[in-house]
């Protein structure tokens, strides 16, 4: 039978975060929504007080300030991803360790951090990490909120990267371990020279998915007073007179910013996913 029943196409179910047929349609709709909301807002503004600046003018005026916040979001996402990648790989290797003293705590930490919401981890880190620490040789070093938030965002991602690494190592056929062992490789050599190089390639799509999720989570930092894109947007709306007609265009603008940034990453991830799909 060349076509068995109930066979899932591997590329369809390889990842929960797979993208459907990607086009620029969605972006167009978002743009259209922004345009409609602006039109709507203008309409209301003219009905109320003709002299008032239209929502579009207000938004235009505040765009540099909002983009400044967005830059902080990008910075936090890069920093958190760098921490998460390095720490996640070590934690993942810790999970694979033969020593129970190392593997059990690694599994425990991975489990805990994977199963708690981002916002809860963010609250914990923001409230429990002091705002300045004493480093030997540097004296007191201040920890601004955004650095603490970056650290907080890296925690759930590093646990997931640890889990991805474990999954990738386990997906390598066991025969490779045995044959490498028969060629007198040590365990460390097998892991670093044979297994991991194959794993890293397989991990790239999942790694990028987590980057996208991380970038989408960074606006949460605004809840704790970090002046990121949402924080700046809300401050801008406040400064412009807290008019209700500003809400739709401003929030849609923020959504549009993220969409423009994340959507190409999603397309790229999906391409790589298909490229590296494990043939079977």
């Amino acid at each position, binding site marked *: 039978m060349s076509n068995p029943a109930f066979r899932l196409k591997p590329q369809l179910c390889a990842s*929960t975060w797979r993208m459907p047929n990607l086009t620029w349609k969605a972006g167009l709709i978002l743009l259209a929504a922004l345009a409609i909301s602006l039109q709507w807002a203008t309409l209301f503004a003219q009905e109320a007080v003709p002299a008032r600046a239209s929502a579009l003018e207000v938004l235009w005026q505040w765009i540099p300030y909002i983009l400044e916040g967005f830059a902080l979001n990008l910075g936090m996402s890069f920093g958190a991803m760098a921490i998460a990648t390095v720490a996640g790989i070590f934690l993942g290797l810790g999970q694979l360790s033969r020593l129970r003293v190392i593997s059990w705590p690694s599994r425990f930490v991975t489990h805990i951090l994977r199963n708690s919401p*981002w916002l809860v981890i963010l*609250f914990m880190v923001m409230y429990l990490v002091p705002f300045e620490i004493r480093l030997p040789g540097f004296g007191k070093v201040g920890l601004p909120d955004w650095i603490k938030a970056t650290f907080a965002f890296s925690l759930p991602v590093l646990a997931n990267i640890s889990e991805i690494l474990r999954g990738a190592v386990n997906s390598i056929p066991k025969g490779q371990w045995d044959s490498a062992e028969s060629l007198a490789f040590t365990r460390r050599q097998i892991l670093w020279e044979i297994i991991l190089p194959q794993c890293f390639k397989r991990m790239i799509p999942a790694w990028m998915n987590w980057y996208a999720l991380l970038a989408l989570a960074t606006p949460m930092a605004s809840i704790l007073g970090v002046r990121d894109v949402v924080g700046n947007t809300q401050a801008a709306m406040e400064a412009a007179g807290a008019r209700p007609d500003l809400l739709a265009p401003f929030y849609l603008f923020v959504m549009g910013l993220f969409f423009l940034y994340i959507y190409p990453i999603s397309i790229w991830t999906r391409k790589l996913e298909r490229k590296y799909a494990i043939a079977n």
Partner: protein
Amino acid sequence: MPDWIAAFFADLHTQTGLNFIIFHDDYEFARFLRGASLSLQLIIATVVFSLVVGVFGAWAQGAKSRIIRWVMDAYIQIFRNTPPMVQMLFFYFVLGAYVPQVDAGGYYEPMVTSFGWALISLGIFGGAFNVEIFRSGLEAVPASTREAAESLGFSRWQIYLYVTLPLAFRISLPALTNNLVSLAKTPSLAYVISVPEMTYILNQIRSDHINVPEMMLVLFTFYIVVVTLLAAVLHLIERKLALPGYGQ
């Protein structure tokens, strides 16, 4: 609350200064319970609502009309590629403004509460992922099965409801479980629109009693326990319903 628990935590407070006030003060304990129950309601309602969105969405994606498919595609892309927190703010502040007010006995309140908006926005967000998962499950059901049902005189809707969907559901269970577990963690986001669930309540209690580390520990533990239990239940269902003879 049993007396010995209250006594234990009151003792802990006087001995060590660790103030788990929610476990030795009746008023705060009631607040804690209300927050916990609202959190659980929100989690369960969100999961169920996202499943409904997923089933209807997957059905709409297989529709003959190009416009419907186009709209579904756009919906999935927009909700997957924008921050869920901003989506929630948008739903609550922007769409919430257009919802009519109802008379609640002397004063007016919006027809959709903040709980309602949290449920709607999270359900639609999670649903965008479920649509995809169900669709890949539907595609995995072989055409010959559908043809067999057709030859037995089933109508199109009957085939979907009695043949394709149950099979697709069981095929897509592993992916679905993963997504539902990660969706169960998002209701803490409802904090931004002041839904008095666990995150919000514990933040209030810690500002009332200045016992930040203790309350953060309780919050952290609460979510880990709830999410771990939910994951265990879902995995149990997954094992019970797994199609025999496939996978490990």
